């Protein structure tokens, strides 16, 4: 009766305790707390017995043994401290999936003596174990009662073990579910945290509920928690805000969507974003926006850069009037820019072939292009100028340049440009015309400087002629007429007339306007003629002029008059430089010599005012003025003439005084057209030197 009453009380206490434990499980208290409470309850109800729970750890999946109230350890530590062996009744029950009853440990021989001795030393005389099985009959662990006295468990004790083992299984299943939930949540969180995309959850009114670190970093703070609760709308750039608010409303009404917008970060930086958003049910049941947003600033900038450089290219091509192309000779494939279509007058977008391109080359320049194509076979760099003759009759001057490159597959590709230089050519020609005009003007100006000399040159023979005529009249009027004297006088008159007409012819030649670039010019003769014209001027200014030239010089190719113009300019320049020089001999030395094997050089050296060495390169610029007044145009025109002859012109200043102005022009490739032999020219040169010697300083 007493026992019954106690048994009923115990059964009620067990039921109570079991309920409490289940409640603990239900509200999600930690497994350990549940198990500790269970140990306490079991030892309270099992009259002097001690309780042990050994289970597969739901976290680490290792066996845990709970040996005493408030004492739960994992297996290794439990073994070390309490001497539980791996092999014992607990393991047996677990492996058998059936209860194991050891009524007397002292006489038990199934396990090692060490286990027995440790158990006995610990005051355990009997050991009763039930397995803890899940609903699917998985072994989760074992539940053991250790009795201080040998014997079998009472029916209550059996019930208690069964009941509590069941509760453990429930608690463990719950723990397992919690763990897997937690793990799944954690792995999901890890995924979200690891993704470079910005993941955020936003309520209908824009409040940030969650954001990953990519999102917070983008916003400008490393701590996502700092952003939770903030209004996301505040980050959206002002001009995009209304659009974004509307977008968010739509998502929170259940639609999915995509939007590009700008945000302004906490640092005030503008970033371009694109977001994919979907509705999401939040904890409280309301619909919120799950947004995955990507920073496309770099992509956008790159795209913009690309667009800009393409636009720039188009602009550059427009401004430079050039079109670009890529040509693969092996396949004949040509791709080209719009501007190239325009230059070639081909309908934009039409397929371009080499035939189409060559068909538009001016027939007169076809050989130039053929030659370039020939060179392309050897992979050479291409550069040529040619004309296009378009179907409508338009003629264009173009310059083509192409650079050979090899593709990764080893194909030869030409990347090049064709520039429309028509306008430049036209303006060059106009400029040339202008220069020629200028040269003419400068020659006419030179006429002014020469006029005194010319007047002198003409007046001398004229004076002779007039005087002779008077003499003739007298001789023929005499009685009888002096015919012999008259004949002599008439001869002189004719000579003087020739002399005057020579001067006039020289002048006429000097000031004619047309330009002949293919004459074979004897530079010595040309120089002598100029000197002849200037002779009186030079003499009047008391200048000693000396002409030195070596014999047997070949002629040069070009325009005699123009070259004489240059010589005249250099001589006038030298005369000008001598103005006011009184403390030293006034000398001009004209030297004609070979510059190198195929160039002749004419150098005019004076003892006049020199120039600053720094000015040497500017002297030949048009309108450059120095102390040598008025020669600016003359020298620039001279340079132009010499350059057109394929030569060069330069000036050097003497250290003490004076300067040398010289030019060098290529020799004539053809045969010498001069009638005189080299000896005759030598003679001439000597004679000229003789003239120079006659003019003392």
């Amino acid at each position: 009766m007493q026992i019954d009453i106690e048994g009923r009380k115990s059964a009620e206490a067990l039921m109570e305790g079991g309920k409490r434990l289940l409640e603990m499980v239900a509200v999600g208290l930690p497994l350990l707390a549940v198990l500790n409470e269970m140990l306490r309850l079991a030892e309270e109800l099992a009259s002097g017995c001690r309780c042990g729970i050994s289970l597969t750890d739901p976290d680490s999946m290792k066996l845990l043994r709970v040996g005493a109230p408030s004492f739960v350890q994992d297996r290794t530590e439990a073994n070390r401290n309490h001497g539980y062996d791996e092999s014992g009744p607990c393991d047996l029950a677990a492996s058998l999936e059936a209860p194991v009853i050891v009524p007397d440990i002292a006489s038990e021989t199934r396990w090692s003596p060490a286990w027995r001795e440790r158990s006995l030393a610990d005051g355990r005389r009997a050991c009763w174990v039930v397995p803890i099985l899940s609903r699917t009959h998985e072994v989760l662990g074992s539940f053991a009662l250790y009795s201080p006295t040998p014997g079998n468990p009472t029916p209550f004790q059996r019930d208690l073990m069964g009941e509590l083992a069941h509760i453990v299984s429930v608690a463990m299943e719950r723990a397992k579910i919690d763990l897997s939930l937690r793990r799944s949540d954690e792995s999901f969180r890890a995924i979200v945290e690891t993704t470079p995309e910005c993941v955020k959850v936003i309520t209908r009114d824009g409040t940030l509920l969650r954001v990953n670190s990519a999102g917070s970093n983008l916003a400008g703070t490393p701590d996502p928690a700092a952003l939770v609760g903030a209004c996301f709308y505040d980050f959206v750039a002002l001009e995009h805000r209304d659009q974004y608010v509307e977008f968010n409303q739509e998502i929170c009404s259940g639609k999915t969507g995509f939007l590009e917008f700008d945000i302004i970060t906490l640092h005030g930086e503008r970033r371009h974003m694109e977001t994919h958003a979907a509705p999401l049910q939040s904890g409280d049941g309301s619909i919120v926006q799950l947004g995955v947003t990507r920073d496309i600033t770099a992509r956008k900038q790159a795209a913009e850069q690309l667009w800009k450089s393409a636009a720039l290219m188009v602009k550059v091509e427009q401004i430079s009037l050039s079109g670009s192309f890529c040509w693969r000779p092996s396949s004949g494939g040509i791709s080209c820019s719009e501007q190239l279509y325009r230059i070639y007058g081909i309908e934009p977008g039409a397929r371009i072939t080499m035939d189409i391109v060559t068909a538009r080359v001016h027939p007169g320049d076809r050989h130039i292009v053929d030659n370039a194509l020939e060179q392309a076979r050897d992979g050479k760099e291409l550069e040529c100028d040619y004309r296009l003759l378009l179907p409508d009759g338009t003629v264009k001057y173009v310059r083509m340049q192409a650079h050979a490159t090899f593709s990764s597959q080893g194909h030869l590709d030409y990347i090049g440009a064709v520039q429309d230089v028509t306008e430049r050519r036209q303006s060059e020609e106009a400029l040339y015309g202008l220069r020629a005009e200028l040269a003419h003007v400068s020659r006419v100006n030179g006429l002014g400087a020469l006029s005194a000399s010319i007047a002198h040159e003409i007046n001398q023979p004229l004076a002779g002629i007039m005087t002779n005529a008077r003499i003739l009249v007298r001789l023929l009027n005499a009685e009888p007429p002096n015919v012999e004297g008259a004949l002599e006088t008439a001869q002189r008159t004719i000579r003087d007339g020739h002399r005057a007409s020579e001067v006039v012819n020289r002048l006429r030649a000097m000031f004619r306007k047309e330009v002949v670039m293919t004459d074979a010019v004897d530079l010595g003769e040309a120089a002598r003629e100029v000197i002849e014209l200037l002779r009186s001027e030079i003499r009047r200014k008391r200048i000693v002029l000396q002409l030195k030239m070596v014999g047997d010089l070949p002629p040069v190719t070009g325009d005699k008059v123009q070259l004489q113009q240059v010589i005249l300019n250099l001589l006038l320049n030298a005369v000008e430089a001598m103005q006011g020089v009184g403390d030293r001999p006034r000398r001009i030395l004209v030297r004609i010599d070979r510059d190198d094997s195929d160039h002749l050089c004419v150098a005019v050296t004076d003892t006049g005012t020199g120039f600053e060495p720094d000015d040497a390169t500017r002297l030949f610029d048009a309108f450059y003025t120095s102390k040598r007044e008025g020669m600016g145009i003359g020298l620039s025109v001279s340079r132009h003439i010499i350059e057109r002859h394929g030569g060069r012109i330069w000036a050097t200043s003497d250290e003490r005084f004076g300067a040398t102005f010289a030019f060098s022009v290529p020799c004539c490739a053809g045969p010498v057209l001069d009638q005189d032999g080299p000896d005759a020219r030598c003679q001439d040169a000597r004679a000229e030197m003789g003239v120079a010697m006659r003019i003392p300083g």
Partner: protein
Amino acid sequence: MTEGPLIVVVDDDESVRESLHELLREFGFTVRSFASAEECLIDGRIGEACCLVSDIDMPGMSGCDLQQELRRRGETVPIVFISAHADDVLRSQVLEQGALACLCKPFSDIVLLETIRAALGGAVTGGRSDTGQ
């Protein structure tokens, strides 16, 4: 043929020198002509001349130089300059220095003859053209 008064011609230009020589001879003068002032000075007979006809622009010693040199030597021979340059400055300069005239080439023979007659004053009848024959 009687010897007319001596006239010295200095001109480096062959055409002028030769024609002038002949013309003056035709007028009945005795003429000595030189291609340069230096040659004329070396000849040393300028003192005998009743007139010097000289170019101004000549290589080396110019007409002006010759004029100065003659003055330095005390020679008072009247000088008629002829010049192919119509240079007024030079012209007034030589006239200031005492030259009788400065004619521009080409000049008329009549003007030249009148100028020379003026230089010879009344004592030039022997120089008349009709006495030349």
